[in-house]
Protein backbone atom coordinates (compact mmCIF):
# COMPACT_ATOMS: atom_id res chain seq x y z
CA UNK A 1 0.00 0.00 0.00
CA UNK A 2 1.33 3.39 -0.97
CA UNK A 3 -0.32 6.57 0.21
CA UNK A 4 2.44 9.13 -0.50
CA UNK A 5 0.43 10.50 -3.46
CA UNK A 6 -2.24 11.85 -1.13
CA UNK A 7 -0.64 15.21 -0.15
CA UNK A 8 0.34 16.00 -3.72
CA UNK A 9 -3.12 15.39 -5.15
CA UNK A 10 -5.01 16.75 -2.17
CA UNK A 11 -6.12 20.01 -3.89
CA UNK A 12 -7.38 18.09 -6.96
CA UNK A 13 -9.33 15.71 -4.75
CA UNK A 14 -10.82 18.48 -2.62
CA UNK A 15 -11.98 20.31 -5.73
CA UNK A 16 -13.42 17.05 -7.03
CA UNK A 17 -15.27 16.52 -3.77
CA UNK A 18 -16.68 20.03 -4.08
CA UNK A 19 -17.95 19.31 -7.62
CA UNK A 20 -19.45 15.98 -6.52
CA UNK A 21 -21.25 17.58 -3.58
CA UNK A 22 -22.42 20.51 -5.69
CA UNK A 23 -23.96 18.15 -8.25
CA UNK A 24 -25.55 16.10 -5.47
CA UNK A 25 -27.07 19.03 -3.57
CA UNK A 26 -28.19 20.94 -6.66
CA UNK A 27 -29.82 17.90 -8.24
CA UNK A 28 -31.56 16.87 -5.02
CA UNK A 29 -32.95 20.33 -4.27
CA UNK A 30 -33.98 21.28 -7.82
CA UNK A 31 -34.99 17.72 -8.67
CA UNK A 32 -37.29 17.54 -5.66
CA UNK A 33 -38.80 20.92 -6.55
CA UNK A 34 -39.54 19.52 -10.02
CA UNK A 35 -40.79 16.21 -8.65
CA UNK A 36 -43.63 17.76 -6.65
CA UNK A 37 -45.52 19.21 -9.64
CA UNK A 38 -44.73 16.14 -11.77
CA UNK A 39 -46.09 13.87 -9.06
CA UNK A 40 -49.12 16.07 -8.50
CA UNK A 41 -49.94 16.21 -12.21
CA UNK A 42 -49.94 12.42 -12.31
CA UNK A 43 -52.61 12.39 -9.61
CA UNK A 44 -54.81 15.33 -10.53
CA UNK A 45 -53.88 16.42 -14.05
CA UNK A 46 -55.82 16.00 -17.28
CA UNK A 47 -55.09 12.97 -19.42
CA UNK A 48 -52.40 14.47 -21.73
CA UNK A 49 -50.42 16.03 -18.88
CA UNK A 50 -50.82 12.92 -16.78
CA UNK A 51 -49.57 10.72 -19.58
CA UNK A 52 -46.65 13.02 -20.32
CA UNK A 53 -45.60 13.01 -16.66
CA UNK A 54 -46.01 9.24 -16.48
CA UNK A 55 -43.96 8.74 -19.63
CA UNK A 56 -41.21 10.98 -18.24
CA UNK A 57 -41.05 8.92 -15.05
CA UNK A 58 -41.03 5.61 -16.94
CA UNK A 59 -38.25 6.84 -19.18
CA UNK A 60 -36.08 8.10 -16.32
CA UNK A 61 -36.65 4.98 -14.24
CA UNK A 62 -36.44 2.56 -17.16
CA UNK A 63 -33.10 3.53 -18.67
CA UNK A 64 -29.61 3.66 -17.12
CA UNK A 65 -28.51 7.07 -15.86
CA UNK A 66 -25.20 6.50 -17.61
CA UNK A 67 -26.86 6.45 -21.02
CA UNK A 68 -29.09 9.40 -20.07
CA UNK A 69 -25.96 11.41 -19.38
CA UNK A 70 -24.41 10.33 -22.67
CA UNK A 71 -27.62 11.08 -24.57
CA UNK A 72 -27.65 14.62 -23.20
CA UNK A 73 -23.96 15.36 -23.54
CA UNK A 74 -23.05 13.59 -26.77
CA UNK A 75 -26.51 13.38 -28.35
CA UNK A 76 -28.31 16.64 -27.59
CA UNK A 77 -24.95 18.40 -27.35
CA UNK A 78 -24.16 17.37 -30.92
CA UNK A 79 -27.16 19.17 -32.46
CA UNK A 80 -26.33 22.60 -31.08
CA UNK A 81 -23.50 23.20 -33.56
CA UNK A 82 -25.92 22.42 -36.41
CA UNK A 83 -28.12 25.40 -35.51
CA UNK A 84 -27.02 28.29 -37.74
CA UNK A 85 -25.29 31.08 -35.88
CA UNK A 86 -24.87 29.04 -32.74
CA UNK A 87 -21.10 28.88 -32.81
CA UNK A 88 -20.85 32.66 -32.75
CA UNK A 89 -23.22 32.81 -29.83
CA UNK A 90 -22.20 32.89 -26.18
CA UNK A 91 -24.17 29.69 -25.67
CA UNK A 92 -21.29 27.88 -27.33
CA UNK A 93 -19.48 28.14 -24.04
CA UNK A 94 -22.28 26.27 -22.34
CA UNK A 95 -22.07 23.57 -24.99
CA UNK A 96 -18.42 23.12 -24.14
CA UNK A 97 -18.83 22.61 -20.44
CA UNK A 98 -19.90 19.08 -19.56
CA UNK A 99 -20.65 20.23 -16.02
CA UNK A 100 -23.99 21.77 -17.05
CA UNK A 101 -25.03 18.59 -18.83
CA UNK A 102 -24.19 16.60 -15.73
CA UNK A 103 -26.30 18.97 -13.58
CA UNK A 104 -29.22 18.67 -16.00
CA UNK A 105 -29.01 14.88 -16.27
CA UNK A 106 -28.79 14.36 -12.50
CA UNK A 107 -31.59 16.82 -11.77
CA UNK A 108 -33.94 15.19 -14.28
CA UNK A 109 -33.04 11.76 -12.97
CA UNK A 110 -33.75 12.67 -9.37
CA UNK A 111 -36.97 14.41 -10.41
CA UNK A 112 -38.13 11.27 -12.26
CA UNK A 113 -37.48 8.90 -9.38
CA UNK A 114 -38.85 11.25 -6.75
CA UNK A 115 -41.95 12.17 -8.77
CA UNK A 116 -43.00 8.53 -8.79
CA UNK A 117 -42.63 8.44 -5.00
CA UNK A 118 -44.49 11.74 -4.61
CA UNK A 119 -47.31 10.36 -6.76
CA UNK A 120 -47.73 7.49 -4.32
CA UNK A 121 -47.49 9.84 -1.35
CA UNK A 122 -50.14 12.20 -2.74
CA UNK A 123 -52.43 9.22 -3.33
CA UNK A 124 -51.90 7.87 0.18
CA UNK A 125 -53.03 11.00 2.02
CA UNK A 126 -56.38 9.99 3.54
CA UNK A 127 -59.31 11.33 1.54
CA UNK A 128 -61.10 12.39 4.70
CA UNK A 129 -58.42 14.99 5.42
CA UNK A 130 -58.81 16.52 1.96
CA UNK A 131 -62.59 16.47 2.32
CA UNK A 132 -62.31 18.17 5.71
CA UNK A 133 -60.14 20.88 4.17
CA UNK A 134 -62.68 21.34 1.40
CA UNK A 135 -65.48 21.50 3.95
CA UNK A 136 -63.62 24.38 5.61
CA UNK A 137 -63.89 26.21 2.31
CA UNK A 138 -60.21 26.05 1.41
CA UNK A 139 -59.37 26.91 -2.17
CA UNK A 140 -57.65 24.14 -4.18
CA UNK A 141 -54.34 26.01 -3.86
CA UNK A 142 -54.67 26.40 -0.11
CA UNK A 143 -55.76 22.80 0.29
CA UNK A 144 -52.67 21.62 -1.59
CA UNK A 145 -50.21 23.88 0.19
CA UNK A 146 -51.65 23.52 3.71
CA UNK A 147 -52.82 19.91 3.84
CA UNK A 148 -52.04 17.73 0.84
CA UNK A 149 -48.43 18.73 0.20
CA UNK A 150 -47.17 18.73 3.82
CA UNK A 151 -48.83 15.39 4.56
CA UNK A 152 -47.33 13.84 1.42
CA UNK A 153 -43.84 15.22 2.14
CA UNK A 154 -43.87 13.91 5.71
CA UNK A 155 -44.62 10.47 4.35
CA UNK A 156 -41.85 10.71 1.77
CA UNK A 157 -39.11 11.91 4.09
CA UNK A 158 -38.05 8.48 5.43
CA UNK A 159 -37.63 7.18 1.87
CA UNK A 160 -35.78 10.36 0.90
CA UNK A 161 -32.70 9.21 2.83
CA UNK A 162 -32.34 6.17 0.59
CA UNK A 163 -33.04 8.20 -2.53
CA UNK A 164 -30.39 10.81 -1.69
CA UNK A 165 -27.85 8.08 -0.92
CA UNK A 166 -28.74 6.46 -4.25
CA UNK A 167 -28.16 9.78 -5.95
CA UNK A 168 -24.82 10.19 -4.16
CA UNK A 169 -23.82 6.75 -5.34
CA UNK A 170 -24.52 7.63 -8.96
CA UNK A 171 -22.42 10.81 -8.90
CA UNK A 172 -19.20 9.06 -10.03
CA UNK A 173 -20.91 8.45 -13.39
CA UNK A 174 -20.18 12.05 -14.39
CA UNK A 175 -16.52 11.21 -14.89
CA UNK A 176 -17.51 9.45 -18.15
CA UNK A 177 -18.15 12.90 -19.60
CA UNK A 178 -15.42 15.45 -18.94
CA UNK A 179 -16.47 16.61 -15.48
CA UNK A 180 -13.71 16.87 -12.89
CA UNK A 181 -15.49 15.34 -9.92
CA UNK A 182 -13.95 13.24 -7.15
CA UNK A 183 -13.97 10.13 -9.33
CA UNK A 184 -12.13 12.00 -12.10
CA UNK A 185 -9.55 13.18 -9.54
CA UNK A 186 -9.04 9.60 -8.42
CA UNK A 187 -8.75 8.45 -12.04
CA UNK A 188 -6.04 11.06 -12.57
CA UNK A 189 -4.13 9.73 -9.57
CA UNK A 190 -4.46 6.22 -10.95
CA UNK A 191 -3.17 7.26 -14.36
CA UNK A 192 -0.25 9.25 -12.96
CA UNK A 193 0.93 6.83 -10.28
CA UNK A 194 -0.07 3.48 -11.86
CA UNK A 195 -1.63 2.48 -8.55
CA UNK A 196 -4.65 0.22 -8.99
CA UNK A 197 -6.26 -0.14 -5.59
CA UNK A 198 -5.23 2.63 -3.19
CA UNK A 199 -7.00 5.52 -4.97
CA UNK A 200 -10.16 3.42 -5.40
CA UNK A 201 -10.09 2.38 -1.75
CA UNK A 202 -9.67 6.04 -0.81
CA UNK A 203 -12.69 6.86 -2.97
CA UNK A 204 -14.75 4.09 -1.40
CA UNK A 205 -13.92 5.38 2.10
CA UNK A 206 -14.91 8.95 1.18
CA UNK A 207 -18.23 7.73 -0.18
CA UNK A 208 -18.87 5.66 2.94
CA UNK A 209 -18.25 8.72 5.11
CA UNK A 210 -20.63 10.77 2.96
CA UNK A 211 -23.28 8.05 3.18
CA UNK A 212 -22.91 8.03 6.96
CA UNK A 213 -23.24 11.82 7.17
CA UNK A 214 -26.37 11.81 5.00
CA UNK A 215 -27.95 9.03 7.05
CA UNK A 216 -27.32 10.93 10.29
CA UNK A 217 -28.49 14.27 8.87
CA UNK A 218 -31.76 12.83 7.60
CA UNK A 219 -32.28 10.93 10.83
CA UNK A 220 -32.08 14.28 12.61
CA UNK A 221 -34.50 15.86 10.11
CA UNK A 222 -37.00 13.07 10.58
CA UNK A 223 -37.06 13.67 14.32
CA UNK A 224 -38.12 17.27 13.70
CA UNK A 225 -41.30 16.18 12.01
CA UNK A 226 -44.38 15.85 14.19
CA UNK A 227 -45.65 12.29 14.15
CA UNK A 228 -48.86 10.94 15.50
CA UNK A 229 -48.67 7.35 16.62
Amino acid at each position, binding site marked *: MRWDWLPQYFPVLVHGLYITLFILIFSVVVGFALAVPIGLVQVTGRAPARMAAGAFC*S*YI*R*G*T*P*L*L*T*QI*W*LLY*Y*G*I*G*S*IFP*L*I*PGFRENFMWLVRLDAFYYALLAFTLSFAGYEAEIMRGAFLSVPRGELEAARAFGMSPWKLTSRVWFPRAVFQVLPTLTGEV*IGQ*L*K*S*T*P*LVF*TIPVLDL*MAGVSKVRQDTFL*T*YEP*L*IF*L*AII*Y*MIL*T*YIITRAFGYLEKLIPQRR
Partner: protein
Amino acid sequence: MILAAAIARTWAEFFHDKAALLAFGDTGYGDELLWGAVRSVEIAFFAYALGLALGLAGAMGKLSGGPILKAILEGYTTLVRAVPELVLILLLYYAGTDGLNKILETVGIGRIEINGLVAAVFVLGFVQGAYHTEVLRAAIQAVPLGQSEAGKAYGMSPFKQFTRITLPAMLPNAIPGLANLWLNVTKDSALISVVGFTELALATRQAASVSKQYLLLYLVAQALYLTISLSSTLLFSWLERYVRRGQPKLA
Protein backbone atom coordinates in the same frame (compact mmCIF):
# COMPACT_ATOMS: atom_id res chain seq x y z
CA MET B 1 -40.65 32.38 -38.83
CA ILE B 2 -36.93 32.49 -39.42
CA LEU B 3 -36.37 30.59 -36.22
CA ALA B 4 -38.97 27.97 -37.16
CA ALA B 5 -37.38 27.56 -40.57
CA ALA B 6 -33.96 27.21 -38.97
CA ILE B 7 -35.23 24.56 -36.57
CA ALA B 8 -36.99 22.71 -39.38
CA ARG B 9 -33.81 22.77 -41.46
CA THR B 10 -31.77 21.53 -38.52
CA TRP B 11 -34.10 18.61 -38.02
CA ALA B 12 -34.23 17.79 -41.72
CA GLU B 13 -30.45 17.92 -41.89
CA PHE B 14 -30.20 15.82 -38.82
CA PHE B 15 -32.53 13.02 -39.78
CA HIS B 16 -31.52 12.99 -43.43
CA ASP B 17 -30.76 9.47 -44.52
CA LYS B 18 -30.60 8.13 -40.97
CA ALA B 19 -32.70 5.01 -41.46
CA ALA B 20 -29.84 3.26 -43.25
CA LEU B 21 -27.76 3.72 -40.13
CA LEU B 22 -29.87 1.21 -38.24
CA ALA B 23 -29.69 -1.44 -40.94
CA PHE B 24 -28.38 -4.87 -40.06
CA GLY B 25 -25.09 -6.09 -41.47
CA ASP B 26 -21.97 -4.16 -42.37
CA THR B 27 -23.70 -0.99 -43.52
CA GLY B 28 -25.65 -0.18 -40.38
CA TYR B 29 -25.48 -0.50 -36.63
CA GLY B 30 -28.80 -2.23 -36.04
CA ASP B 31 -27.23 -5.61 -35.40
CA GLU B 32 -24.47 -4.18 -33.19
CA LEU B 33 -27.00 -2.48 -30.93
CA LEU B 34 -29.34 -5.45 -30.78
CA TRP B 35 -26.43 -7.76 -30.01
CA GLY B 36 -25.34 -5.32 -27.30
CA ALA B 37 -28.81 -5.46 -25.80
CA VAL B 38 -28.65 -9.27 -25.78
CA ARG B 39 -25.30 -9.12 -23.98
CA SER B 40 -26.75 -6.66 -21.45
CA VAL B 41 -29.66 -8.96 -20.67
CA GLU B 42 -27.25 -11.89 -20.48
CA ILE B 43 -25.04 -10.14 -17.91
CA ALA B 44 -28.08 -8.98 -15.97
CA PHE B 45 -29.64 -12.44 -15.93
CA PHE B 46 -26.58 -14.34 -14.70
CA ALA B 47 -25.62 -11.60 -12.23
CA TYR B 48 -29.17 -11.63 -10.89
CA ALA B 49 -29.10 -15.41 -10.49
CA LEU B 50 -25.76 -15.22 -8.68
CA GLY B 51 -27.04 -12.37 -6.52
CA LEU B 52 -30.14 -14.34 -5.64
CA ALA B 53 -28.05 -17.35 -4.56
CA LEU B 54 -25.71 -15.14 -2.52
CA GLY B 55 -28.67 -13.28 -1.07
CA LEU B 56 -30.45 -16.45 -0.01
CA ALA B 57 -27.31 -17.73 1.69
CA GLY B 58 -26.71 -14.30 3.21
CA ALA B 59 -30.25 -14.01 4.54
CA MET B 60 -30.02 -17.48 6.08
CA GLY B 61 -26.69 -16.58 7.65
CA LYS B 62 -27.99 -13.30 8.99
CA LEU B 63 -31.06 -14.94 10.49
CA SER B 64 -29.61 -18.11 11.92
CA GLY B 65 -25.81 -17.88 11.77
CA GLY B 66 -23.33 -17.47 14.60
CA PRO B 67 -22.09 -14.07 15.79
CA ILE B 68 -18.96 -14.10 13.58
CA LEU B 69 -20.89 -14.99 10.42
CA LYS B 70 -23.48 -12.34 11.27
CA ALA B 71 -20.77 -9.70 11.69
CA ILE B 72 -19.15 -10.65 8.36
CA LEU B 73 -22.48 -10.50 6.55
CA GLU B 74 -23.34 -7.19 8.19
CA GLY B 75 -20.01 -5.81 6.95
CA TYR B 76 -20.67 -7.16 3.45
CA THR B 77 -24.12 -5.63 3.09
CA THR B 78 -23.19 -2.30 4.69
CA LEU B 79 -20.01 -1.91 2.67
CA VAL B 80 -21.53 -2.83 -0.68
CA ARG B 81 -24.58 -0.66 -0.15
CA ALA B 82 -22.60 2.42 0.94
CA VAL B 83 -20.07 2.47 -1.92
CA PRO B 84 -21.06 3.50 -5.47
CA GLU B 85 -21.58 0.58 -7.85
CA LEU B 86 -19.14 2.07 -10.31
CA VAL B 87 -16.34 2.18 -7.73
CA LEU B 88 -17.15 -1.36 -6.57
CA ILE B 89 -17.11 -2.63 -10.12
CA LEU B 90 -13.70 -1.11 -10.78
CA LEU B 91 -12.30 -2.36 -7.46
CA LEU B 92 -13.71 -5.87 -7.77
CA TYR B 93 -12.84 -6.13 -11.45
CA TYR B 94 -9.17 -5.33 -10.91
CA ALA B 95 -8.89 -7.03 -7.53
CA GLY B 96 -10.78 -10.10 -8.74
CA THR B 97 -8.87 -10.70 -11.96
CA ASP B 98 -5.56 -9.86 -10.26
CA GLY B 99 -6.25 -12.00 -7.22
CA LEU B 100 -7.35 -14.99 -9.27
CA ASN B 101 -4.22 -14.79 -11.42
CA LYS B 102 -1.99 -14.55 -8.33
CA ILE B 103 -3.64 -17.63 -6.87
CA LEU B 104 -3.31 -19.51 -10.15
CA GLU B 105 0.36 -18.52 -10.41
CA THR B 106 1.18 -19.75 -6.92
CA VAL B 107 -0.64 -22.99 -7.62
CA GLY B 108 1.43 -23.24 -10.79
CA ILE B 109 -1.20 -23.09 -13.51
CA GLY B 110 -0.07 -19.68 -14.77
CA ARG B 111 -1.99 -16.56 -15.73
CA ILE B 112 -5.24 -16.84 -17.59
CA GLU B 113 -7.18 -14.26 -19.56
CA ILE B 114 -10.45 -13.84 -17.70
CA ASN B 115 -13.50 -13.73 -19.91
CA GLY B 116 -15.14 -10.29 -19.78
CA LEU B 117 -18.62 -11.75 -19.44
CA VAL B 118 -17.62 -13.96 -16.51
CA ALA B 119 -15.89 -11.08 -14.72
CA ALA B 120 -18.88 -8.79 -15.31
CA VAL B 121 -21.30 -11.40 -13.99
CA PHE B 122 -19.23 -12.04 -10.86
CA VAL B 123 -18.75 -8.37 -10.06
CA LEU B 124 -22.40 -7.39 -10.57
CA GLY B 125 -23.59 -10.56 -8.86
CA PHE B 126 -21.46 -9.83 -5.80
CA VAL B 127 -22.96 -6.32 -5.58
CA GLN B 128 -26.49 -7.63 -6.14
CA GLY B 129 -25.99 -10.26 -3.45
CA ALA B 130 -25.84 -7.61 -0.74
CA TYR B 131 -29.16 -6.09 -1.79
CA HIS B 132 -30.74 -9.53 -2.21
CA THR B 133 -29.61 -10.42 1.32
CA GLU B 134 -31.52 -7.47 2.77
CA VAL B 135 -34.65 -8.00 0.67
CA LEU B 136 -34.85 -11.72 1.45
CA ARG B 137 -34.01 -11.27 5.12
CA ALA B 138 -36.84 -8.77 5.54
CA ALA B 139 -39.24 -10.99 3.59
CA ILE B 140 -38.39 -14.07 5.65
CA GLN B 141 -38.71 -12.12 8.89
CA ALA B 142 -42.19 -10.98 7.87
CA VAL B 143 -43.41 -14.59 7.90
CA PRO B 144 -44.96 -15.34 11.31
CA LEU B 145 -42.69 -17.67 13.29
CA GLY B 146 -45.68 -19.78 14.30
CA GLN B 147 -46.06 -21.03 10.73
CA SER B 148 -42.66 -22.69 10.53
CA GLU B 149 -43.08 -23.85 14.13
CA ALA B 150 -46.29 -25.57 13.05
CA GLY B 151 -44.28 -27.26 10.31
CA LYS B 152 -41.73 -28.34 12.88
CA ALA B 153 -44.51 -29.74 15.05
CA TYR B 154 -45.62 -31.85 12.08
CA GLY B 155 -42.11 -33.31 12.00
CA MET B 156 -40.90 -31.54 8.86
CA SER B 157 -37.15 -31.36 8.31
CA PRO B 158 -35.69 -27.84 8.29
CA PHE B 159 -35.30 -28.08 4.50
CA LYS B 160 -38.90 -29.09 4.04
CA GLN B 161 -40.01 -26.34 6.43
CA PHE B 162 -38.22 -23.87 4.19
CA THR B 163 -39.47 -25.13 0.82
CA ARG B 164 -43.03 -25.88 1.94
CA ILE B 165 -43.75 -23.05 4.36
CA THR B 166 -41.25 -20.21 4.58
CA LEU B 167 -40.54 -19.92 0.84
CA PRO B 168 -44.12 -19.74 -0.45
CA ALA B 169 -45.14 -17.50 2.45
CA MET B 170 -42.28 -15.04 1.99
CA LEU B 171 -42.41 -14.75 -1.83
CA PRO B 172 -45.30 -12.25 -1.90
CA ASN B 173 -43.27 -10.01 0.46
CA ALA B 174 -40.10 -10.47 -1.55
CA ILE B 175 -41.34 -10.09 -5.14
CA PRO B 176 -41.63 -6.25 -5.21
CA GLY B 177 -38.08 -5.92 -3.83
CA LEU B 178 -36.77 -8.60 -6.17
CA ALA B 179 -38.43 -6.87 -9.14
CA ASN B 180 -36.70 -3.63 -8.19
CA LEU B 181 -33.36 -5.43 -7.99
CA TRP B 182 -33.86 -6.94 -11.44
CA LEU B 183 -34.59 -3.49 -12.89
CA ASN B 184 -31.48 -2.19 -11.11
CA VAL B 185 -29.25 -4.91 -12.48
CA THR B 186 -30.42 -4.36 -16.06
CA LYS B 187 -29.52 -0.69 -15.63
CA ASP B 188 -26.29 -1.38 -13.73
CA SER B 189 -25.16 -3.65 -16.54
CA ALA B 190 -24.41 -0.40 -18.39
CA LEU B 191 -21.70 0.31 -15.80
CA ILE B 192 -19.76 -2.71 -17.03
CA SER B 193 -18.92 -0.60 -20.08
CA VAL B 194 -16.32 1.28 -17.99
CA VAL B 195 -14.15 -1.84 -17.77
CA GLY B 196 -14.41 -2.24 -21.54
CA PHE B 197 -16.98 -5.00 -21.94
CA THR B 198 -19.10 -4.41 -25.03
CA GLU B 199 -22.71 -4.45 -23.91
CA LEU B 200 -25.46 -2.13 -25.11
CA ALA B 201 -24.06 1.13 -23.67
CA LEU B 202 -20.52 0.61 -24.95
CA ALA B 203 -21.71 -0.77 -28.32
CA THR B 204 -23.77 2.39 -28.74
CA ARG B 205 -20.88 4.61 -27.74
CA GLN B 206 -18.58 2.90 -30.22
CA ALA B 207 -21.14 3.02 -33.03
CA ALA B 208 -21.86 6.69 -32.26
CA SER B 209 -18.23 7.75 -32.24
CA VAL B 210 -17.61 6.02 -35.60
CA SER B 211 -20.74 7.31 -37.34
CA LYS B 212 -20.95 10.67 -35.49
CA GLN B 213 -24.72 10.11 -35.20
CA TYR B 214 -24.80 10.48 -31.43
CA LEU B 215 -28.39 11.57 -30.91
CA LEU B 216 -30.06 8.92 -33.05
CA LEU B 217 -28.00 6.00 -31.77
CA TYR B 218 -28.36 6.99 -28.12
CA LEU B 219 -32.11 7.37 -28.58
CA VAL B 220 -32.29 3.88 -30.05
CA ALA B 221 -30.24 2.49 -27.16
CA GLN B 222 -32.55 4.19 -24.66
CA ALA B 223 -35.54 2.69 -26.45
CA LEU B 224 -33.95 -0.77 -26.14
CA TYR B 225 -33.31 -0.29 -22.42
CA LEU B 226 -36.85 0.97 -21.94
CA THR B 227 -38.21 -2.08 -23.76
CA ILE B 228 -36.27 -4.35 -21.42
CA SER B 229 -37.52 -2.47 -18.34
CA LEU B 230 -41.15 -2.25 -19.37
CA SER B 231 -41.40 -5.90 -20.39
CA SER B 232 -39.70 -6.91 -17.11
CA THR B 233 -42.22 -4.86 -15.16
CA LEU B 234 -45.04 -6.71 -16.91
CA LEU B 235 -43.42 -10.05 -16.20
CA PHE B 236 -42.94 -9.29 -12.52
CA SER B 237 -46.49 -8.01 -12.04
CA TRP B 238 -47.70 -11.30 -13.53
CA LEU B 239 -45.35 -13.17 -11.19
CA GLU B 240 -46.60 -11.22 -8.19
CA ARG B 241 -50.20 -12.03 -9.09
CA TYR B 242 -49.19 -15.69 -9.31
CA VAL B 243 -47.44 -15.89 -5.90
CA ARG B 244 -50.27 -13.91 -4.29
CA ARG B 245 -52.91 -16.30 -5.56
CA GLY B 246 -55.24 -17.34 -2.78
CA GLN B 247 -54.30 -14.33 -0.67
CA PRO B 248 -56.80 -11.61 0.18
CA LYS B 249 -56.57 -8.65 -2.19
CA LEU B 250 -54.54 -5.66 -1.01
CA ALA B 251 -56.60 -2.58 -0.32
